[in-house]
């Protein structure tokens, strides 16, 4: 079965959103889950991507990705009407949604994409949702309007102060954690380094924190173990035990090193790809 791109839009610099036909995944998808996409042929890379939204009636899922390597660049160059050959999912355990009280949703960069369905579900379950979204600069901020709709309070920060407050997400997070009553739960999704520092803050105030990890993986069903992380001193597989974990127990330093495993080869593949293709990234919508 192939999967047609029904819409595609560039959200910012190298971040794209697309709705893709995937009725089976759409029917089963829950917040917190992801898919593995394999663009074409038998030897394309298997790319894990979080599900940013799904519509069971239409049979579509929304993917948001950043063109960081060859395969995501290829996906970015696909046009509406073209087909992705393989979509596997939904994978991973769904987010545990219940009425906790006040839930702080912290998103950084592309992490806003998987965070949105979680924040939406948390709101629906009766929680007070405070969202903190961070970006390097104004142009890289995504999904602001969507978060505005579902959040009781929305705080924007940018590294360079070009929009919202000039700060890192950890600053407003710490301010909220200092207030009484403390928030019931923090959900932080973004670059590993951001999640690491968010967890350092919330640990200080003893606020439970969930993170969603996006490690390197192949099969996504527990078979390869490439996605393993150390959680509370134990080896866990992101694909079947996660992708969400208690952030206070995750060994982020190890995880960040593991995520660099193929840096050289990825750069080489990207280089080759750019040479062979007239790159349209950033030129079309």
């Amino acid at each position, binding site marked *: 079965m192939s999967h047609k791109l029904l819409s595609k839009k560039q959200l910012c610099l190298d971040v794209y959103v697309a709705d893709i036909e995937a009725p089976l995944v759409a029917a089963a998808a829950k917040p917190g889950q992801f898919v593995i996409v394999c663009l074409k042929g038998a030897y394309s890379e298997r790319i894990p991507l979080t599900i940013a939204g799904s519509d069971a009636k239409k049979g579509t899922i929304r993917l948001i990705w950043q063109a960081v390597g060859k395969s995501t660049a290829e996906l970015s160059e696909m046009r509406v009407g073209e087909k992705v050959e393989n979509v596997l999912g*939904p994978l991973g355990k769904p987010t545990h949604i219940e009425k906790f009280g006040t839930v702080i949703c912290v998103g950084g960069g592309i992490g806003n994409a998987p965070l949105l369905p979680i924040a939406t579900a948390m709101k629906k379950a009766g929680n007070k949702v405070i969202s903190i979204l961070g970006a390097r600069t104004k142009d890289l901020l995504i999904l602001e309007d969507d978060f505005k709709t579902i959040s009781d309070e929305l705080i924007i920060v940018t590294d360079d102060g070009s929009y919202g407050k000039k700060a890192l997400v950890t600053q407003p997070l710490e301010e909220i954690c200092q207030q009484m009553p403390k928030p019931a739960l923090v959900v932080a999704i973004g670059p590993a380094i951001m999640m690491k520092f968010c967890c350092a803050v919330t640990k200080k105030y003893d606020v439970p924190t969930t993170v969603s990890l996006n490690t390197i993986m192949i099969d996504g069903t527990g078979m390869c173990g490439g996605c393993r992380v150390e959680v509370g001193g134990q080896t866990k597989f992101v694909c*079947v035990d996660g992708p969400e974990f208690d952030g206070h127990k995750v060994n982020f330093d*190890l995880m960040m090193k593991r995520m660099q495993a193929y840096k050289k080869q990825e750069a080489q593949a990207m280089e080759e790809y750019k040479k062979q293709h007239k790159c349209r990234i950033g030129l079309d919508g």
Partner: protein
Amino acid sequence: MVDKENQLDEQQLLDELLKKHKAGTLKASDRYAIPPQPMPQQDSVKRRSNVNEVALGYTETQARLEALRCLQCKNAPCVEGCPVRIKIKDFIAEIVDGNFKKALDIIKENSLLPAVCGRVCPQEVQCQLPCTVGKKFKDVDKAVSIGRLERFVADWGAKFHDGSIPKVTGRTNKKVAVIGSGPGGIVVATDVKRAGHDVTVFEAFHKTGGVMVYGIPEFRLPKAIVQQEIDQLKAMGVNIVCNFVVGRTKTIKQLMEEDGFDAVYIGVGAGLPMFMNIEGEHLVGVYSANEYLTRANLMKAYQFGKGADTPIAMSKKVAVIGGGNVAMDSARTAVRLGAEKVYLVYRRSEKEMPARVEEVHHAKEEGIEFHLLRNPKRILGNSEGIVTAIECLKYELGEPDASGRRRPVPIPGSEFTIDVDTVVVAIGNGANPLIGQTTPGLNLNKWGNIIVDENCKTSLDGVYAGGDIVLGAATVILAMGQGRTAAAAINEYLKGK
């Protein structure tokens, strides 16, 4: 020239023997005198830099000579050693007479995948172990090479006889879901389809074949052979759905209640790699064998940048931990990926290795260095988190343990290090938790394996299971054997529905 002379000699010998055979004067002593036919194989230096099949297969003359070594024992002890009870002496008798098609038909009565089993079955501990000829020479290596003969017949069939598609009897309008397209799933799908049921095979990967495509390397089992089996399923009218992970895309309950499947076979394999839980296992360059082999085989990482997009470590020095077939496959794959040094580290001695003798032999020929009675204590890395070495302990063998093998005992203070940049952990698989977690009422044992009765039926009505998810780590042939049993039980169960 030598080869040609050899071939002439072989032909001459065969002609003489066949003459006696036809005249009914061939004696057991004549059969014992026939030299065991060696398997032609790719040169051990050349093959280090290609992924082509290592064992090349018997010629017709060799096959008939080897077949003549069979004594045609009345009690056929070999059949007892075969998990699927192939009528071994009968098919061998047909080879002697040059009736290869008949030989193939005899094998296919019991085994659906002779080209696969002829290559990857551990015959030396199955059919060839009780062989009278091997017993006579007190050497199992001198038993009749049943596996090689099976392979010869299967390859002959593929070459000269366009695969006959098993007959399907009238449609029953009953639906069967087969989860997993590995050897067990293929057998169940075939046998259940033959009985006229609608069959859908669900595969989580984007390619079918299970362990035969992601695990066993091309040089041991060419993927084209697996593809033939899948094509045959399709030709029979079996539906194949890839990218469908049962438990997540849909649960077994949904398949049965919403999609109307009357019976389900779970053949998902083991699929949860074990690690050693030692320091340094999270370093960059440490792989499970599953990951290493999947990258190399399924995703063809050895062609990275040349049509394949999945990378793999560009290793110079590799240590593979373990002593099974998967460990040998990993080590031999590392050689082909260009590693200069490949070490195999195993905590017992060679005698206890679960790997096939042939694989151990091939690995040694390809220059893999064996560190026996050694086991890693920790993996060392640099500041960037990349593997630099393994620290090992020396072991000695103590009293036999539960498996009957002598327990390896570490020698205190015997630490030493081996410089490596890649470590492949090939110490086995646990049970994948996905199906268990998402199927209420499915009984599992304490290791997470599915509990079945003698018909491979699980604790749920209409749900059957077999292969590694039931047995723990086993073999292709055992998975096929259970598939046979389960398919018969499913067909019986559906009669009553």
